[in-house]
């Protein structure tokens, strides 16, 4: 069972890299990305995506400006603003904002890594992690999410 799991993981990552290699489009442009995927609201990991994906916590919208600045809006990991830095079809995002988790929320920072591959409507997959201070308990919240979606040019 462990070998099968390892093979599935290798297959998943090689599929992601293959999709990345076939993709095109490396220029910033105003766009809107709709993400779906299960967030981790506590510590450790996330549950599988609900089928059908009707849970609002699984959605996130990312608005990218011409200047390479992005707004991310979702129940988890929160409402975030930052810069996007692209190399080919891959990009990283760094910024801050209101970090939200099941344990609370407050100001914090985030970083993300993703790929945007395709011609007009692009396939997108992104890992986003956030670290914030919970204003309720003065503890730390650190949600993350692995999500896929589609990027629409505006």
């Amino acid at each position, binding site marked *: 069972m*462990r070998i*099968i*799991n*390892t093979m*599935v*993981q*290798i297959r*998943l*990552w090689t599929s992601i890299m293959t999709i990345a290699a076939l993709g095109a489009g490396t220029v910033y442009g105003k766009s809107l990305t709709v993400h779906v*995927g*299960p967030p*981790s609201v*506590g*510590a*450790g*990991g*996330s*549950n*599988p*995506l609900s*089928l059908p994906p009707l849970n609002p916590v699984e959605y996130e919208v990312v608005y990218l400006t011409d200047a390479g600045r992005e707004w991310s809006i979702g129940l988890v990991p929160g409402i975030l603003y930052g*810069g996007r*830095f692209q*190399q080919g079809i*891959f990009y*990283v995002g*760094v910024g801050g904002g209101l970090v939200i988790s099941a*344990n609370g929320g407050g100001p914090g*920072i985030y*970083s*993300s*890594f993703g790929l945007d591959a395709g011609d007009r409507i692009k396939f997108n997959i992104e*890992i986003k*992690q956030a*670290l914030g201070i919970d204003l309720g308990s003065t*503890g*730390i919240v*650190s949600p*993350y999410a*692995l*999500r*896929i979606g589609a990027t629409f040019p505006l």
Partner: protein
Amino acid sequence: MGRLCFVVWVHLFRVAVLSAICPVFAEVHGIELGVGLGALEEGDDRMRGALVAQVGWQNEYASRLFYASRHMGPVSERTIILSAIKHWSVFKNKFLRADVGPVIMNERIEIGFSQPADQDYDRSENNFNIGGVVGLNLGIPTGKLLFETSWNSHIFPAGIAGIFLASGRKQTLSVTVGMRL
């Protein structure tokens, strides 16, 4: 597989130490060497201490090793996380960089009883995972001194459920001090 990668990494670390002895080799390769302390995510918002070792190259690539262990009576657990990182410039800033790359992790759990009568119940298992790392790195970009603070999430697809985007994470915080050779 995890053991093989660990052996390869230790070999690379040895090469880095050798480069400290031979400055010409070091200048050609631009190797960075560092050790430090870190905190490794457990569950329920707990972190535990870890040792960190790092080998970098040309201020652009790095390999970071986390090692943590704990013992609870007859049970011992060892966690090894080994990542290959590309530093990514952000905000045209030399101090702050994003980290991305692949990662492997092995968690070994052993149950070993000291009493001979109980040793039939000894057990061990290895949990090996492949994933990706994403994070931020704040440090001194130039000079002989290597100083880096890092915040990383090591994300692993949760087996077959990874198709439905289920994943596990080991979040780490670390401080690494060393030198550029």
